[in-house]
């Protein structure tokens, strides 16, 4: 029809909304999300779309502000989007999720906060692994490395770090790890002597630090100069060049957990590696660098949603939601398995423990061994 406003909802392109922070504090994340999502859409459309229907990605900027994400959600809804892939800023996602519930529109969140899926909200699904998943896999690694005493530090202003910290506190016992030093700092912290000084006079065998953004870089640099020789263990939020580039030499030898795709080049030949390469090649071609974590998340968001729509055979929100709850899909992030009580999808097997060598992420020996036995398929 010539009336572009009222497309036939069963035959025209399928419209998917994407709300990401393209300006504001989380701009760097949102830009990555958007690039990854774009690649997924291009790939799917090149393969003939979903049941012959093209995907049309409508992008909105939430400016790292919750109320803008609500505006964006309403706009997506009015413009006929069938589902929304949402912000990597947790507060934005949390603001939009009630609307998704009210409108029965699936909301695929790119934010990490556990609270989005705990308790389970019918229409909200999470793409990144939860902080607790990262925490658990790291504890497994510590146990295997015979580390029993750790110093734990976290940024009290980052929900991601707080959630991870709490998970470590809760689960450490199960892995025979005790927290001998427990220090807090905040996002504005520029001097970490208050964290590292007590460690020096303790018998901790590793420092496990939960942070996002600049404080992680600063802490890593000061750790390198602190004279401490025990390992520094970081989290998935640092598994990105956003961390390694500014941290430079100080980042070498740091241990960190990451999405499994981050160690793509080191994966054994497998379906997973194929999935990772599929994204990496296109991304590299388009943007000249390997995909950062956020791009992988954005990419996974689209292919997860597309797969659910394909499975549902419909763009009806409720049907797609049902399909999502049955979904099992291998992606560069590993295998997503959503169920009615688990909207978070990724298990510890999908988390890699890597170390930084030459500015790149490589699996630790323990991880290499894990990969040979426990590779997500």
């Amino acid at each position, binding site marked *: 029809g010539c009336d572009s406003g009222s497309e036939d909802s069963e035959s025209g392109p399928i419209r998917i909304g994407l709300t990401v922070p393209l300006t504001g*504090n989380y*701009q*760097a994340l949102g*830009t990555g999300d958007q690039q990854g999502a774009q690649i997924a859409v291009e790939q799917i459309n090149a393969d003939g779309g979903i049941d012959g229907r093209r995907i049309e990605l409508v992008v909105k900027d939430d400016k790292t502000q919750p109320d803008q994400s609500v505006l964006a959600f309403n706009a997506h809804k009015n413009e006929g989007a069938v589902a929304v892939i949402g912000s990597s800023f947790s507060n934005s996602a949390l603001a939009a999720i009630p609307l998704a519930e009210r409108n029965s529109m699936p909301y695929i969140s790119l934010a990490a906060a556990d609270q989005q899926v705990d308790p389970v909200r019918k229409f909200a699904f999470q793409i990144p692994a939860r902080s607790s998943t990262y925490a658990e896999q790291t504890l497994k690694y510590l146990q295997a490395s015979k580390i029993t005493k750790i110093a734990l530090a976290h940024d*009290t*202003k980052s929900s991601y770090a707080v959630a991870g910290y709490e998970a470590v506190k809760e689960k450490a016992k199960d892995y025979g790890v005790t927290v001998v030093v427990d*220090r*807090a*700092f*905040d996002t*504005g*912290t*520029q*001097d970490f*002597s*208050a*964290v590292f*000084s*007590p460690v020096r*006079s303790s018998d901790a065998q590793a420092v496990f630090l939960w942070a996002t953004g*600049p404080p992680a*870089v*600063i802490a890593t*640099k*000061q750790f390198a*100069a*602190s*004279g401490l020789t025990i390992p520094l263990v970081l989290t998935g939020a640092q598994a990105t*060049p*956003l961390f390694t*580039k*500014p*941290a*430079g*030499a100080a980042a070498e030898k740091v241990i960190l957990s990451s999405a499994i795709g981050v160690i793509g080049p080191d994966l054994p030949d497998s379906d997973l590696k194929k999935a990772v390469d599929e994204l990496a090649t296109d991304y590299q071609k388009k943007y000249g660098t390997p995909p950062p974590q956020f791009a992988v998340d954005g990419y996974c968001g689209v292919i997860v949603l597309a797969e659910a729509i394909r499975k549902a055979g419909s763009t009806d929100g409720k049907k797609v939601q049902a399909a999502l709850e049955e979904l099992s899909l291998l992606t560069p992030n590993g295998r997503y398995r959503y169920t009615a009580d688990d909207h978070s999808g990724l298990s510890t097997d999908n988390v890699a423990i890597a170390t930084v060598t030459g500015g790149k992420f490589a699996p630790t020996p323990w991880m290499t061994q894990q990969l040979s036995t426990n590779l997500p398929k």
Partner: protein
Amino acid sequence: MSDFLGYLIAGAALGCTIALLASGFVVVHRVTGVVNFAQGMFPVVAGLAAGSLLSASWPHGVAEIGGVLLAGAVGLLVGLIAIGKPGTPPLASLVITFGLGFLGYAVEIVIWGDQPRGFDGLSGVLTIGGVRIQHQWLLVMAVAAATFAALGAFFGRTYLGKGLTACASNPYAARLAGIDVRRMGLYAFALAGLLGGVAGVLLTPLQSIAFDRDVALAVNGFAAAVLGGLDRPGAALAGGLLLGIGQTLFAGYVDGSFQTEVALGFMVLVMVVRATRQREAMAV
């Protein structure tokens, strides 16, 4: 005890960086009466530019100076737009500098991208009595000390410094006395750019720098500068030290999660107490 000393020194070093960030506010406000919201842009520009120059294999030192000079030029540009047009009141200038901060974002992103960057500074650590302190921190302290000594002497002792101060004190009278108020304002902005640049190239090795770090840097600097009403370099240095040492001590002995808030709250308290003391009987 060695912990305490460690916190104290670390706090002083941190305070010096904050004070360096504050100095630009002081210079611009003292001369033009404008609060320069774009001040945070200068360290960012200098840090990013120095990083680029270093990766273009300029030698250390030269690259940093290049970054600082660029920041000075940017400062001049900001001044030209913010106060260049005659009859722009300080409040309008303030909002203009706010806008320029945003414009800076766009330019920085186009040139350097939105990802954080860093480069290495002085390596090595000095150990005194069990306290470890990175050479880079020592450099920061030395530069801050020199900068503030120079600023204090410049504004307090030199004729030109007095003339600059007169511009904000009473622009009309300054003009009658033959002082070119606009030109002096531009000098001040350029100087603020240089000072911000110095802070930037010294800080970048210590933390990462990205286009949007400006807010955090500016808020810290503003907080320190405001202790002296944005006019007194000495007070800005004191403010920086107060903030830095307050933060590290609080983080060290009490709790690290509120260190910024506690330091800021403490500053407010200092100001309120001082204002209450100064207050005359009037208008209670």
